[in-house]
């Protein structure tokens, strides 16, 4: 089959790879009809996440049709249209049992690397590096979904695949970020990043009762999209001082909660190649937590900062002093798809969350490299690209 593979730092390519097959009794094989790009793919492509191997199949946010099920799959039927969450949960460990599915103890086939990096291994995820189990992703004609009863959900009839696809990852990530903010009446929530996750986090914050939500970015068409579709205020940080603007907006208090939806490759005025040869020589690629720093500085005393952007390794210049002396709560984590996917599907079906507008580009999988190029440059109003592997 055809699949979009990692080719080394900064490069992807469409290749012919072996078809996946049922390997465990609870696996399902899904024929992928649409698979979205995600900001976290850029971190993988750019070599910020350890454990990428040439040939790894990218993609983790997708919809498709169940074409084969293992003998122990109980709830899924061949022919069903499903949306699948990226993280794999075994359903039986203490973490799955307590609804913290992204922390599943059992699904990473080789936890050596994450245990070395982080002390413990989180759940495996589709289309990531070896650090998350090295399972092949969804930018392919077919994908193997382990523990499919827990990870794959039937798409409600009244939802289009173009909406439902974001119930896989972007919408649950946004929902979890907003939930982590523990929003109370009167709360003002600031969101860094106007990508799909940022916009869906902003919408979730509004649904969960925020008084006012403000989204911060520099990409003007993304900010316009957020204003038009989410009904939020926006700040373009290239034109205003964000700290000052947020203090003005909150009459000196600062936002009650701050959501970071940017991740490790934030704009820091130095740029992605800032560490170039020196970083390579020393064998490090420091992450750029610019938006985390800003969020912590902006947040009101006693407030909450929720990280939904992805980080993998080490970041310097972390404002621990502000965190400590302002008594902030810092929350984070990959989304627990098996907990939040049904919630957002329900929200989408009721019309409280809209996501279809996020797909600005749709193309055959064979154009994958062009799709990522558009997405990376935020060119042509690009917010999200979906690939259609069956075209």
């Amino acid at each position, binding site marked *: 089959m055809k699949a979009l593979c990692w*080719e080394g730092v900064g490069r992807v390519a469409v290749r012919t790879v072996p078809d996946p097959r049922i390997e*465990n009794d609870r696996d399902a094989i899904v024929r992928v009809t649409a698979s979205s790009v995600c900001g976290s793919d850029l971190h993988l492509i750019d070599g910020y996440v350890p454990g990428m191997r040439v040939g790894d199949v990218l993609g983790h946010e997708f919809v498709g049709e169940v074409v084969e099920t293992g003998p122990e799959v109980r709830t899924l039927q061949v022919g069903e249209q499903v949306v699948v969450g990226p993280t794999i949960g075994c359903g039986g460990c203490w973490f799955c049992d307590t609804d913290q599915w992204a922390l599943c103890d*059992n699904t990473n086939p080789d*936890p050596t690397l994450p245990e070395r990096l982080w002390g413990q291994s989180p759940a495996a995820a589709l289309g990531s590096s070896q650090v998350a189990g090295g399972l*092949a992703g969804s930018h392919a004609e077919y994908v193997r979904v*382990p523990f499919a009863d827990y990870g794959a959900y039937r798409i409600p009839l009244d939802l289009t695949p173009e909406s439902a696809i974001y119930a896989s990852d972007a919408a649950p990530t946004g929902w979890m970020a907003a939930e982590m903010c523990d929003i109370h009446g009167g709360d003002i929530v600031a969101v860094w990043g106007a990508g799909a996750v940022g916009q869906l986090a902003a919408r979730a914050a509004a649904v969960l009762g925020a008084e006012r939500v403000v989204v911060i970015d520099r990409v003007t068409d993304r900010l316009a999209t957020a204003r038009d579709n989410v009904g939020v205020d926006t700040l373009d940080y290239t034109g205003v001082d964000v700290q000052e603007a947020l203090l003005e907006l909150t009459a000196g208090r600062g936002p009650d909660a701050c959501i970071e939806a940017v991740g490790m490759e934030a704009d820091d005025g*130095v740029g992605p190649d800032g560490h170039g040869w020196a970083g390579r020589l020393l*064998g490090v690629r420091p992450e750029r937590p610019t938006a985390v720093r800003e969020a912590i500085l902006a947040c009101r005393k006693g407030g909450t900062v929720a990280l939904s952007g992805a980080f993998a390794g080490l970041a310097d*210049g972390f404002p621990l002093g502000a965190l400590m002396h302002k008594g902030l709560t810092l929350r984070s984590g990959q989304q627990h798809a098996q907990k939040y996917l049904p919630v957002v599907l329900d929200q989408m079906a009721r019309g409280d969350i809209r996501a279809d507008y996020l797909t600005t580009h749709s193309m055959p999988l064979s154009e994958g*490299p062009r799709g990522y190029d558009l997405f990376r440059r935020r060119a042509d109003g690009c917010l999200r690209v979906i690939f259609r592997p069956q075209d």
Partner: protein
Amino acid sequence: MGVAGAAVGYLGVRAVRLMAAVRAGAEIGVRRRPPAVTIHRPPTEVYAFWRDLPNLARTLGHVTRVDEVDDRRSRWVLEGIGPARVEFTLEIVRDEPPRLIEWRAGDELLAHQGRVEFTRAPGNRGTEVRLHVAGPPGGRIEDLLYGELRRVKQTLEGGEVLAVGRRDLPARVPAATGGRA
């Protein structure tokens, strides 16, 4: 000042940031994990799984065959460790359900004495399983144990040990279409 000052400042920030990352990176190292896991099942169930040796053997890697000779002794055949096939007799020397099993295994490469302890974990977390093994110098058997314990945990909790998946790509194959992403 001006341009030169700005350039020095810029490079200085860059250098500090790189050094901080290198320093922090050095703290991340290879650490030996003790052979202990917490299994989200009650001690009686974990003990029973372990005490049923042919059943246990199906979960462990490398074991191709187990024959129970009597109540206490069993004959094990392993492959994929060392040069070829390894066979040995295992004898259970202490059996205190559902708390402890102690055994002694003879023969060459994998000669060892072992003990597995099951204790109730706090707050409904299940069972703490700790393995203690004394074997010949070289620690080959000890290296295997953490992995084997994980397999037991995966089987008891999730019902299966997840396979890595197909990945038999050559290192380089010509790309159909490709380019910078």
